[in-house]
């Protein structure tokens, strides 16, 4: 790595954001022989510092005081449920937790590492083929990615090998194999590591789900079930189910992160420069507005503004920030929900997730503190392409799973009570202890469709510490997704009956219930700079290249046309490798638009 104290010369490539997407692009483009400078707004992070036991596993400092997450004091966003409301600032992190610093959200994620289904990537076409055009509700912006599972398969495979993903295949090169997800599409290879072990809760769910007639499988986990060395020579140690994945830096080098799985090799590469505490404020364009010339950024170390130029710019910050930088840089046309024109901010989606809870008899202890972020048992019966949505009456779907990631006592206590149960006092205290010792959670982790009046734009009132307007989110739950969630949660009840639960607390979305920014749901935010086949309805072409500025590629879940039932990181990584492959193979030989608009 080039020393960042020496002023960086003009690199070939500028990369904005040092998370998974940025690190993958940096690795691929340095391999292509290019010089790459990566800008990260936060501090550098390494396992040797942030991951040191035991201070790394301190719940108060970690997940509660949100050490690895975005520093809201500098910049946040505003949120409203409907376009006729005044959006108000997201002043305290709660519903979603973007990362900050090297590794980004990829340092504090859990590790659930899914591919996409074949239908996820062409959901509009598949829905029309199966159920007809009329099945798509009015004002739902259902779209295809413009890339198929078959095209992405080698890149899903590559990402799994880099991440050291633990899992079990059902079908490899057309051959039935193992006890994996029977609904998952065919694979070119096995997972690099065997599946993670089942916690007690996951084993109870696996048995009950099979008895109920469903098809349980181990969640593919970017948590190492065995020691592993990835193709970059980066090493991982076996996971010991310590329970500190989500919200923490893994002290055992067991959870895949850019910091563990990619950056060690980049840091040794002279073509690579990492500049931390560099908040990019704008992607600069030339006079034609069709070519990016570089970036303007705030050097937070010396509180001064700087510019850097390059031939190629990769925007790979967190989803929200990708959208924000496109808007403040004036790239592409902002989406207007009234005229339905413009693309930047269009098709913003989330994850339709609710958690239900099952209590077992008092002589069964669920040891919820044991866990691994990506481990668990899922069923895909209500998410797989063949599930009959025509009968169920909605688009999308939802895996059901027990993903015991390690529940810590502050989170357990904060999450207990309410909904008619005491929230304090002796009765609450007894309930908290009982719930911690004898219960476990079952999630419906569903898709989220895009709608005409759900979008991102710039807020007219509130500004960040750099004087820029903040992003404004207009989001709430819609009928199709609420009914999908209710349908799936009902089936959680059936499975819970089978497992001999002493008490079942089902939790589903209710009609009219607005999105609540105060309650953690997931950090799986998608869209706003989506990929597709038509520049009128997408910001990027199928290679994640801006339709408007051909030397700008925007990588991340911001490219997803809608939210799928799975966690996004596996698809983010595959799309990054896919885009990098085509940049290396086509774009670098002949820079310019790779698809004619």
């Amino acid at each position, binding site marked *: 790595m080039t020393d960042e104290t020496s002023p960086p010369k003009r690199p070939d490539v500028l990369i904005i954001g040092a998370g998974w997407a940025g690190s993958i692009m940096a690795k691929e483009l340095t391999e292509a022989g290019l010089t790459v400078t990566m800008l990260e707004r936060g501090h550098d992070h390494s396992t040797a510092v942030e991951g040191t*036991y035991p201070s790394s596993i301190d719940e*108060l400092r970690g997940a509660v005081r949100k050490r690895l997450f975005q520093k809201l004091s500098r910049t946040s966003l505003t*949120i409203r*449920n409907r376009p006729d409301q005044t959006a*108000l*600032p997201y*002043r305290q992190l709660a519903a979603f937790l973007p990362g900050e610093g090297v590794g980004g959200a990829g340092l504090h994620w859990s590790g659930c590492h899914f591919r996409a289904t074949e239908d996820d990537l062409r959901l509009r076409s598949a829905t029309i083929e199966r159920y007809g055009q009329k099945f798509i509700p009015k004002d739902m912006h259902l779209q295809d990615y413009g890339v198929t599972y078959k095209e992405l398969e080698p890149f899903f495979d590559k990402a799994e090998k880099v991440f050291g993903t633990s899992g079990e295949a059902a079908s490899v090169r057309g051959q039935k194999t193992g006890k994996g997800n029977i609904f998952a599409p065919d694979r070119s290879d096995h997972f690099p590591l065997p599946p993670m072990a089942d*916690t007690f809760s996951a084993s109870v769910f696996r048995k009950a789900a099979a008895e109920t007639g469903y098809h349980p499988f181990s969640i593919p986990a970017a948590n190492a079930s065995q020691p592993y060395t990835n193709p970059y020579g980066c090493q991982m140690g076996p996971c010991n189910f*310590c329970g500190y994945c989500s919200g923490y830096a893994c002290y055992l080098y067991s959870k895949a992160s850019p910091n563990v799985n990619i950056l060690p090799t980049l840091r040794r590469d002279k073509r690579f420069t990492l500049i931390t505490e560099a908040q990019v404020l704008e992607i600069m364009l030339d006079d034609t507005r069709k070519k990016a010339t570089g970036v303007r950024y705030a050097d937070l170390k010396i509180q001064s503004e700087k510019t850097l130029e390059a031939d190629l710019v990769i925007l790979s910050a967190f989803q929200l920030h990708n959208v924000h930088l496109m808007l403040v840089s004036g790239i592409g046309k902002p989406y207007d929900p009234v005229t339905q024109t413009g693309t930047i901010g269009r098709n913003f989606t989330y994850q339709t997730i609710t958690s239900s809870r099952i209590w077992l008899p008092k002589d069964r202890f669920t040891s919820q503190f044991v866990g691994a972020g990506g481990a668990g048992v899922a069923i895909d019966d209500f998410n797989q392409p063949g599930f009959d949505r025509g009968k169920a009456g909605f688009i999308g779907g939802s895996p059901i799973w027990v993903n015991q990631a390690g529940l810590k006592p502050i989170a357990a206590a904060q999450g207990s009570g309410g909904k008619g149960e005491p929230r304090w006092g002796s009765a609450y205290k007894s309930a908290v202890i009982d719930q911690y010792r004898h219960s476990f959670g079952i999630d419906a982790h569903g898709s989220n469709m895009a709608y005409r009046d759900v979008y991102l734009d710039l807020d007219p009132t509130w500004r960040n510490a750099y004087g820029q307007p903040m992003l404004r989110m207009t989001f709430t739950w819609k009928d199709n997704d609420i009914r999908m969630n209710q349908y799936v949660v009902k089936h959680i009840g059936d499975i819970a009956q089978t497992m001999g639960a002493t008490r079942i607390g089902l939790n589903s979305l209710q009609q009219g219930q607005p999105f609540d920014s*105060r309650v953690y749901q997931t950090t799986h935010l998608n869209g706003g700079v989506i990929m597709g086949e038509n520049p009128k309805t997408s910001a990027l072409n199928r290679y994640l290249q801006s339709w408007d500025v051909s030397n700008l590629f925007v990588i991340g879940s911001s490219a997803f046309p809608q939210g799928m039932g799975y966690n996004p990181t596996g698809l983010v990584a595959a799309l990054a490798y896919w885009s990098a492959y085509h940049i290396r193979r086509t774009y670098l030989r002949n820079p310019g638009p790779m698809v004619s608009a």
Partner: protein
Amino acid sequence: MGGAASLSSTPLLGRAAQANPDQPAPQPQDDGDPAHYKPTFFNQEEYLFLYHACERLFPQDENGPGAQALGVPRFIDKQMNTPYGLGALWYMQAPFVEGPPELGYQLPYTPRDLYRGAITPINTHCLIRYNALFAALPPEQQDNVLHALESNTLRFNDIPGAAFFEQLRTNTLEGAFSDPAYGGNHNMEGWKMMGFPGARADFMDWINQEGAPYPFGPVGMPPKANPYSPAFQNDEEG
């Protein structure tokens, strides 16, 4: 925030302590016993309120110690001197506009402001309504006050009761279950009650024991293991 009530703390404190002889008032010394902690942010009147309100939220009972014995008031006092207490972890840019609850906290107040702004008026309310400070009320009346705060029927100096209540509840639970290094969870009694083994963080042989209880008690962080607490309370990260 304008102070609606200006209470002289000394005579009231004396009254509260006399009125409730069964509850030991905090003593000005720090020998590690939570009951002897001397607050550095809260004044005596505020701390006495905190001492009794936390206990109602998380009371001593057959399950084990309550907030007082766990050192929760001490934890909260220490937190007030961190970036968190100063609101440095929140987006605090004006304007501050009221909105529907789903859009989240919209007050211009830091955690410090919430405590400082609400406790004295709550005590004033208790004096007017019950002729005693909160700390001196019988538990049932204390609970009535807390319920009124939780349901937002009490509102002081622009601080909705519910906003203060949620702050207090959140910090009380943090104090009961965070590492003892932060001043609460005294002797890891909070973790023992829950059955949480603390900083063990190695369950290689306990991934699935078919529902048997985990056999080992908790361990805490060694006192100097965490450079971010408590010796470095003003560290940027909080």
